[in-house]
């Protein structure tokens, strides 16, 4: 456990509707982002790779399914994490659970 953790939320926040709402919103973000994560890798890169390979990424010679499997999914993964960071930082502030700068 963290040295500075007072554990106050354990009492104050438990069952608190604000905290439940915060968690619900968090879960909703996770479901959305992980759906994209699944779609680009398992969807476009694996399950649909063969039919997508009939098309080329515009302006290049790479078949679309192959591109998602070896390049595209990785770019999307990076973007997803940064989107998550932004969403959560905003959510933390909105619900006043963000961290102050350590002393």
């Amino acid at each position: 456990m963290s040295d500075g953790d007072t554990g106050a939320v354990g009492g104050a926040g438990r069952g608190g509707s604000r905290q439940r709402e915060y968690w619900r919103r968090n879960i909703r973000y996770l479901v959305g982002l992980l759906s994209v994560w699944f779609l680009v890798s398992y969807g476009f890169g694996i399950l649909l790779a063969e039919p997508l390979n009939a098309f080329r990424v515009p302006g290049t010679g790479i078949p679309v399914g192959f591109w998602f499997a070896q390049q595209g999914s990785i770019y999307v993964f990076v973007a997803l994490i940064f989107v998550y960071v932004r969403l959560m930082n905003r959510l933390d502030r909105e619900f006043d659970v963000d961290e102050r700068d350590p002393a």
Partner: protein
Amino acid sequence: MNVQAWTFMLVASSFALYIAIAVWSRASSTRDFYVAGTGVSPLANGMATAADWMSAASFISMAGLISFMGYDGSVYLMGWTGGYVLLALLLAPYLRKFGAYTVPDFVGDRYYSQNARIVAVVCAIFVSFTYVAGQMRGVGIVFGRFLEVDVNVGVYIGMAIVFFYAVLGGMKGITYTQVAQYCVLIFAYLVPAIFLSLLITGNPVPQLGLGGLDQASGVPLLDRLNGLHEELGFAAYTSGTKSTLDVFFITAALMVGTAGLPHVIVRFYTVPRVRDARMSVGWALVFIALLYTTAPAVAVFARTNLLGSVSGTPYAEVPEWFSNWEATGLLAFDDVNGDGLIQFVGPASTLTNELTVDQDIMVLANPEIAGLPDWVVGLVAAGGLAAALSTAAGLLLVVSSAVSHDLLKGAFKPDITEKQELVAARLAAGAAVLVAGYLGVNPPGFVAQVVAFAFGLAAASFFPAIILGIFSKRTTGEGAVLGMIAGITTTAAYIVYFKLVRPELNTADHWWFGISPEGIGTVGMLVNFSVTLLVSRLTPEPPEHVQALVERIRIPRGAGEAHEISA
């Protein structure tokens, strides 16, 4: 200066740098030793994570593997990057909030059970040793090839370096040397890739070169490669031969395994705040993606080069690099039909293949194949060593903290003082280096076979236990312990059966639903989830203080400092 002088100079100066950093950033407390005093910036931690994660296998072998597997190689690309999304969204922020030193710490406290802690410690140690043996061997091989010393001498040199900075510096020393090692390894990877891309496609960015036109023939590079494949009787490069289901399961096992590897998870304990932990995973993936999106381009360049320049050439006229690598045994030509030409052909060809190529050669020999300057060859050696050493150090730290913190302090001697624990951690790190070195010099025959095991085990044990520990308050200690045991047993039994007991049956016809041992970790994970959820419903709910703990780790405030919280 010749190749060897360049190599010696670049390797020696990079080692001097690592040692200087280790002396400057040595650990003075257990907090420094285990989690670098939680004072690492997210950017630096991202770089360190990338170096920690990318091993000799990523640096030396991966592009070669993809080069030979074509589309099927995508499992490594997606599998070893997609796991970071899971880490960022599902694990890192919560574990940082929990604020422990190790993964078994979390498992032990969340599941209020010494048994859970011990199961976690055993998994952590097994996974880490499996990995580290391969790293030490990698160090030996790179030394052996480029400095022309015995492989074992190479392992001893590597041990001495790692010993110095892991034992002295702990997590703090390791983190800052890993930052330097990342810079060395990515530079060493990108320079030859950029040269090759320019040479073959005229585009300096390898990621774009992959989709560019082949300079020699004017057609898209991948079309040229697919054409060469067809002509020589290989399966199409962009389509692959594994079943879709197997690709799915292997990718999932690698992703989930990545997210469950203790030496990766523990890195996110080192940053000051929860939001830094989230950000840090993002940076880590940026730095990893730089290499992982270059690798498939290198694979295609190397493959095209090899097929285009070697196949059908008279043996008497081969370039110099060919003879150099023949001497190492990584390249072997056997003129079966005695016509003096090199037939390098695939299974669908009417001719017999006469050339065997080790996958590692694709990255190591690239600078020579492309005719790059000598210093680039030396640079690749320094990069390979940086990749192997950084990963070895991170793994050894997990082993030492598992012994000194989880076993000694956590289970056997809770009243040990801070000073004694630090001494114990250093001794454990030293002992771990010796064991790793021994495994590097005398690699058990099955090391290569059990890499799948490390991922499968991490996927089937830690991942479900941690996720459910955070996201389901109702998950009980009994559920988690039985779940981990069920997951591990399923995975281990399947892999041991096909890899060690009956290797001759290791074909798609005998696998469950066509799932290979590499992908069975996904099944193990599903078993773990099911057992844990089921048993948790049948056992009394977790004690009040544990449920409060779960509530607490779900919100960020309070990770770094003491204050009141009003929710």
